């Protein structure tokens, strides 16, 4: 009975229900969401990886790639090296060595002599005023006893993801092509793809493979069956290596099937005795901190959604792919890497259907520990949910007339003030449950829609302007971000004769709609790209608690001014500049890369930034700024 009456009391008290409670609930959502993420690396919440697909049988075959194959390797390497030197490159200048037609011709002749069908593909992309062009070379081993309906891809880019010369990787792929051709046990075709770089070559090739290439990319003269998996080989140095670094992040945070990663780890560790690293965690002691760091690094890459290697381009086509990077100083040579790849290919060769048994949504925190989507999703969902809770509460609250008589007597000292300095309670006029107000929707709806559409302007600018202008434009946007909300706030406050000035209810409605859109977008995004949704959600978290300030005099100007400064520190361009300063990468590089991602890879991160985050942030600034006028 006590509970019943408590609920009845709550229902009869809209002040508590729609004004006091929601910020508290929102805050709890955010805190629990963050705490949830921090719990994931614990043993109780993460799981040991396991091979889910029976057919893979990792490491059950003996890998014979050794011995005399090494002589072939050295021979091929010498042939390529000669071409490098002929191109007028000194030993030091090798990193600048371009993928010349002579090298392409050499690769073709080697593949042809080995008995492969060979073809080339020219492509050209233009992004941010830079033209990327090149020619892919590839050869196909047709499965001697299989049907040509499926294929595996081995990629060796002339330049690695870090733009180093991948001479050993390319040579290894050539040697493997000759070696694989002599086996009769392939059930799938094997495609050896040699691209000039790790950024655009594979993208052009895979687009053309599926006939989805733009006009500037040539179609493929030679094709095989449905691609089942892809492995990218990198070996950009001359010394022996210790560990294998497995890169698995795809464009837009898409991931390959966990079985592929597990198979690589199992084969490298179990069969070859080579340790596996991930996310550049060279010293992983399996402690909580190390696991958390690994996970956060993975989340950052996933959230930014850029291609981390040549393998990333395969992911949008649902082709599972990873890059194998030898790292460290050790005693493993290129033959060991070759055997690992041979064993991996044998495992992929065993597949009966597309990899589907294991997870596609996961966070890895160690080469043998992960959390799956069911465990981590609530974290981002709670953070996205906090905006929705506030939006609904504001909507309900605007349905009541503010009771002005109560304003002076019970003006509640904002309880949220203790929470964050920029959160101010604008709910000074107490609302009562007896009077029903009509909502004035037209202007708030127009404003919120308009500002979201306005996001297309920076989106267009940052994807079409030449790259030299990017740094300047960023600072311009920062300046605009400071001035524009204030102008807009002044306009709304005074009407300027165009329309009647806004009433408090409309400010609440504007906030309600903005948060509703934000919550909706982020919770949808959380299922697709958890990390991006989580990061944007955290950066937007203050917006839940920002309102027009109601306090008087100097205090109002001081608080709103301070709030605006803090909020401007969290604006998209400022965050970008801050992160660039922290990591030491130039803003231009990041934005050029982002524009390239948008133009070539089909990266959606900017859309989320400029059409979800930026409008929501702008509305927060407008609300806070309006208290100045």
């Amino acid at each position, binding site marked *: 009975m006590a509970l019943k009456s408590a609920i009845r009391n709550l229902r009869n008290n809209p002040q508590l229900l729609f004004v006091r409670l929601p910020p508290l609930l929102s805050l709890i959502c955010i805190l629990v969401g963050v705490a949830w993420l921090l719990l994931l690396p614990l043993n109780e919440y993460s799981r040991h990886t396991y091979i889910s697909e029976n057919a893979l*049988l990792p490491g*059950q*075959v003996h890998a014979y790639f050794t011995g005399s194959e090494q002589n072939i390797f050295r021979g091929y390497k010498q042939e390529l090296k000669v071409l490098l030197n002929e191109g007028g490159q000194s030993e030091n200048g090798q990193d600048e060595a371009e993928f010349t037609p002579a090298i392409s011709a050499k690769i073709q002749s080697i593949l042809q002599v080995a008995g492969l069908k060979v073809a080339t593909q020219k492509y050209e992309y233009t992004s941010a005023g830079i033209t990327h062009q090149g020619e892919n070379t590839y050869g196909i081993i047709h499965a001697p006893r299989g049907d040509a309906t499926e294929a595996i891809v081995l990629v060796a880019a002339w330049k690695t993801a870090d733009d180093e010369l991948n001479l050993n990787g390319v040579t290894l792929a050539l040697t493997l092509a000759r070696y694989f051709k002599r*086996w009769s046990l392939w059930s799938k075709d094997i495609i050896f793809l040699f691209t000039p770089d790790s950024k655009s070559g594979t993208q052009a090739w895979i687009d053309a493979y599926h006939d989805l290439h733009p006009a500037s990319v040539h179609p493929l003269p030679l094709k095989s069956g449905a691609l089942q998996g892809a492995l990218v080989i990198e070996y950009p140095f001359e010394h022996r290596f210790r560990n294998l670094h497995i890169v698995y992040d795809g464009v837009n945070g898409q991931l390959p099937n966990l079985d592929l990663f597990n198979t690589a780890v199992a084969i490298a560790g179990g069969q070859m005795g080579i340790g596996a690293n991930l996310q550049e965690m060279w010293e992983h002691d399996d402690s909580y901190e190390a696991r958390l760091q690994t996970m956060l690094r993975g989340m950052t890459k996933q959230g930014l959604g850029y291609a981390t290697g040549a393998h990333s381009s395969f992911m949008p086509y649902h082709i599972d792919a990873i890059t194998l990077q030898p790292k460290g100083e050790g005693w493993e040579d290129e033959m060991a890497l070759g055997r690992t790849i041979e064993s991996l290919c044998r495992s992929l060769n*065993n597949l009966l259907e597309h990899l589907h048994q294991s997870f596609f949504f996961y966070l890895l925190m160690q080469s043998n520990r992960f959390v799956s989507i069911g465990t981590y999703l609530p974290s981002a969902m709670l953070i996205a949910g906090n905006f929705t809770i506030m939006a609904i509460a504001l909507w309900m609250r605007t349905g009541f007339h503010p009771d002005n008589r109560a304003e002076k007597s019970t003006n509640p000292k904002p309880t949220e003030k203790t929470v964050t300095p920029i959160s101010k309670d604008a709910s000074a006029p107490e609302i009562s449950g007896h009077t029903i107000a009509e909502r004035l929707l037209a202007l708030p709806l127009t404003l919120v829609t308009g500002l979201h559409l306005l996001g297309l302007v920076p989106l267009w600018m940052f994807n079409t302007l030449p790259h030299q202008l990017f740094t300047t434009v960023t600072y311009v946007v920062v300046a605009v971000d400071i001035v524009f909300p204030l102008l807009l706030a002044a306009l709304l406050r005074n009407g300027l004769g165009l329309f009647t000035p806004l009433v408090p209810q409309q400010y609440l409605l504007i906030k309600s709609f903005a948060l509703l859109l934000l919550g909706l977008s982020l919770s949808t995004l959380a299922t697709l790209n958890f990390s991006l949704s989580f990061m944007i959600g955290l950066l937007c978290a203050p917006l839940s608690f920002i309102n027009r300030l109601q306090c008087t005099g100097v205090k109002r100007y001081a608080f709103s001014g301070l709030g605006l400064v803090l909020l401007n520190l969290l604006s998209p361009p400022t965050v970008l500049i801050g992160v660039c300063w922290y990591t030491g990468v130039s803003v231009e590089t990041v934005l050029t890369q982002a524009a390239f991602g948008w133009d070539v890879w089909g990266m959606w991160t900017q859309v989320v930034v400029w059409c979800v985050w930026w409008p929501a942030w702008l509305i927060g600034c407008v609300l806070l700024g309006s208290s100045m006028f």
Partner: protein
Amino acid sequence: MTLFSSFLQLLSLLLLICAVTAEHTSNWAVLVSTSRFWFNYRHLANVLSLYRTVKRLGIPDSQIILMLPDDMACNPRNAFPGTVYSNADRAVDLYGDNIEVDYRGYEVTVENFIRLLTDRLDEDVPRSKRLGSDAGSNVLVYMTGHGGDQFLKFQDAEEIGAWDLADAFGQMWEKKRYHELLFMIDTCQANTMYTHFYSPNIVATGSSELDQSSYSHHADNDVGVAVIDRWTYYVLEFLETQVTSANSKLNLGDLFDSYDESKIHSQPGVRWDLFPGGEQEGRLRTVVDFFGNVQNVEVENANATEPGSLKEDLAEIARLVEKWQRRDVEYSAILNNSTEQQTGSPSVHLPRKQTVGPTRMTDDSSWGKRLVGISVVGACTAIWVAGSYLGRSVA
């Protein structure tokens, strides 16, 4: 002389014992693998190894039903095309030159398996796909695949339950399709598969208990898959090293005693209770009673009265005839009673039997038809003659 006569007596006694213990007249083997796909190589190797063993011990191909759902020898992933090996030493190619697969690929279904056992097959199904066993046949049924608690999966698509199998064997017994039956199964939780058997003369053995997995024995690093299961491996080891010829006197007791849980890694089980005489009697059956082939001929004794003899059959038929006659009379009496009650007529009339006589195929009008026919033929002939005569005159 006394020595010779006693020797003769001994010999006849021995023969008598032989006749009692090995009274079956033929041997049949049903060897089933139920899983397909490359990574289940070992299940096909299991079955093929057993196939090889029973052939070695004398069961001809015509009396072996071999069910293979997949073709490992021709799988493109096979590093040794055209072969199947059950050991990493690859000493024996199980596929060899002479192998007869009776049910292959998608023919290996639960329905086909049960139809095979119970002989519910179309007339046009060839003999090679039929289990032609009779009341004198010892049948070996070996199954392997992926199973669970009281089921065995067929080809990733369907499964056979323990009750289905029990009922199939039940029907086999009713239809006199076996004399004694040895059921062997190698799968996870195999022993649950024979829990529901109820028809007599069955000895059943399985590789693992409820909630236990059966494991593979070893993998071949060049073929790249596990090549044989543990239990089957050790059963075969016994059969290949101990039962070296069809004259082997080793019995089922010896075979089952050879199970070593530390090697098999699961607890194999044996079920004796359906066998007349239970374990004591069952243990005495020789291994070749099921794995080998006998050439015994059953000479029917006209005076014998045991089940299955001619005399007993005749007596049974006579009893049936008597029974039906009695029922006929009773039935008519009941019918009379009911009509009496309904109509109250005192007349008693048995249901009239209408004898259906043969009908004549011909009737009297046939002569008329013949006359018409003759006249038509005659007219045609006349026209032809006239035509040819006229044609010649014109030319």
